């Protein structure tokens, strides 16, 4: 629209008139067309309003309302921040997500690079399919898989004890049901996710760029430092943000693993909903809004980075 207006001012008066006539005529017809166009969108919009937007609106609104009197208040937030347990839950959730996102991003990227360089096509496809299965294998079954592997009587725990005399639980003070145990479990679904997200970006790295760099005397390191990484960076940051959001909102895995003994925000919210602990619903809303705020930052970074990806990788 702007472009057309700019052309119009540069052109002579007659063409300006012509373009005015041209745009006015369809506009008269367009009215009913536009209305029917929007009508076709209404069912979906209404569905999203009812089950997606309103729950979010409700949570934000209730977080500013006193749950007993119904008056507007900031008490829920001050209540949330004044209790060390809640602040600690946010710290735990954020550090858990940062650690698993970074671990997943780093090793996932290297693995994806290795996968991208695989010659054998069938093996490559097999690994991609396997990653796709592993990325979808999460929640309660994943937690139990790790209990069977690294739990107190888990297969690997017992194996290490019998064969190598390494006692994970009593000797090394390891426990699956703590923060670092959760890191191990979350990394399981972060790694394949990272592989799947990064592969297309790696695939779009043109071999010509490397050849050109090598011709100009760049070493392998310089190529990565000056060409590949800067091009990949938006994709990598976007992927890391996605991994962060993915583990920040995860509830089922942590709950099935530790049944609420790990203090993270999703588990606190579940407590509020189930009324297990005498927590105030207002506090639950404040916690939920806190989660939304943290995730909004991650998601906006994600979309901002995706927009920059398109510049070099022609998506």
């Amino acid at each position, binding site marked *: 629209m702007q472009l057309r207006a700019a052309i119009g001012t540069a052109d002579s008066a007659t063409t300006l008139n012509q373009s005015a006539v041209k745009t006015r005529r369809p506009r008269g017809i367009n009215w009913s067309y536009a209305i029917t166009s929007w009508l*076709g969108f209404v069912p979906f919009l209404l569905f999203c309003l*009812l089950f997606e937007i309103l729950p979010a609106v409700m*949570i934000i*609104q209730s977080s500013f309302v006193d749950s007993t009197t119904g008056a507007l208040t900031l008490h829920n937030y001050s209540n949330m921040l004044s209790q060390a347990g809640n602040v600690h839950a946010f710290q735990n959730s954020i550090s858990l997500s940062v650690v698993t996102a970074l671990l997943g991003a780093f090793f996932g990227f290297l693995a994806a690079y290795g996968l991208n*360089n695989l010659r054998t096509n069938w093996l490559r496809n097999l690994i991609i399919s396997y990653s796709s299965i592993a990325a979808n294998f999460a929640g309660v079954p994943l937690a139990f898989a790790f209990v069977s592997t690294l739990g107190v009587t888990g297969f*690997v725990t017992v194996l290490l004890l019998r064969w190598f005399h390494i006692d994970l639980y009593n000797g090394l003070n390891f426990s699956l049901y703590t923060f670092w145990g959760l890191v191990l479990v979350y990394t399981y679904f972060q*790694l394949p996710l990272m592989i799947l997200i990064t592969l297309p970006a790696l695939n779009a790295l043109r071999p010509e760029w490397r050849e050109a760099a090598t011709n100009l005397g760049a070493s392998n390191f310089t190529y990565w430092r000056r060409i590949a990484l800067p091009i990949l960076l938006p994709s990598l940051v976007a992927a890391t943000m996605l991994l962060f959001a993915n583990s920040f909102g995860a509830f089922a895995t942590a709950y099935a693993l530790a049944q609420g003994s790990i203090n993270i925000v999703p588990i606190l919210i579940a407590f509020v909903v189930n009324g297990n602990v005498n927590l105030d619903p207002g506090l639950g809303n404040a916690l*939920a809004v806190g*989660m939304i705020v943290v995730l909004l930052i991650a998601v906006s970074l994600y979309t901002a980075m995706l927009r920059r990806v398109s510049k070099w990788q022609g998506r």
Partner: protein
Amino acid sequence: MVQAARNINLPISKDRSTRQGFGVDKVVLILVLLYLTVPLGATLIFGLSTGNGINFNTYHQVFTDPDFSQTLLLSFGLALASTFLTVLLVTPTAYWVQLRLPRARPMMDFLALVPFAVPAIVMAFGLIEVYGTNNTLINILSLGLVPLLSNEPFNVVNTPQLLVCAYVIISLPFVFRPIDNNLRAINTKVLSEAAYSLGSGWWRTFLTIIIPNILPGVISAALLTFSTVMGEFTLASLFGIYTFPIYLNGTGQNDAHKAASLTILSFILTLICVLGIILLVRIRPGSRGKEDRLDIVAAK
């Protein structure tokens, strides 16, 4: 064209990497694959071994448990309903937006992105609050629909129906993308105009021209939704509906060996769904080389 050029160039880059030999990336790849496999193998053995020797006793116990078949059936029904509703809601809308309402695309993108910022646990909390308490603001904003849905005869409060609707929302991010990508790839507008000019109506065009062309995207979206709902725990647990993952969690807390067997079973379920996507989508000619065919469930 660009795609073709890229495909030709790919083998060259691979040749170089083989000359470089076995680098750090390959080592990491093997370690990662090992990391992804060990828990599965360990769980399989753990489920089969009960002290001494291997036996299939736990599997027998699992299959004869009435709760097992009951919850599995419920989850299956929920998954079918959610998949059906998702495809029914998203596919025509995506087509409609592509064809008649390009202006609504950013809104569609936004709605498909919201589940990332509002995770399942928050969504469940919000839904329980919306459909359970009487709130004037919500009543007005929903155009009177929430009170209608919260009271008889359309009461959805804490019912499987509400759960299905929530599952549809949760699936949006990975349902809208593949369908939309496919719609963009097939030149929807030209196909539709050709069909219209030959006298075909909207629905006929949609069902007989568009759907067959975007089938790979629809299938992968449907199977991903199905697999997600089969394993979804958060919403079902907060709504208090006894689905398969809830049963799995309850059993697992008491009997670790039984839990291991159930875990293997649900892994096989995931396996079937993902293999279904791979076989149905990738075997079709023309879908090769498309990198966005693998869409991932990111909402756990």
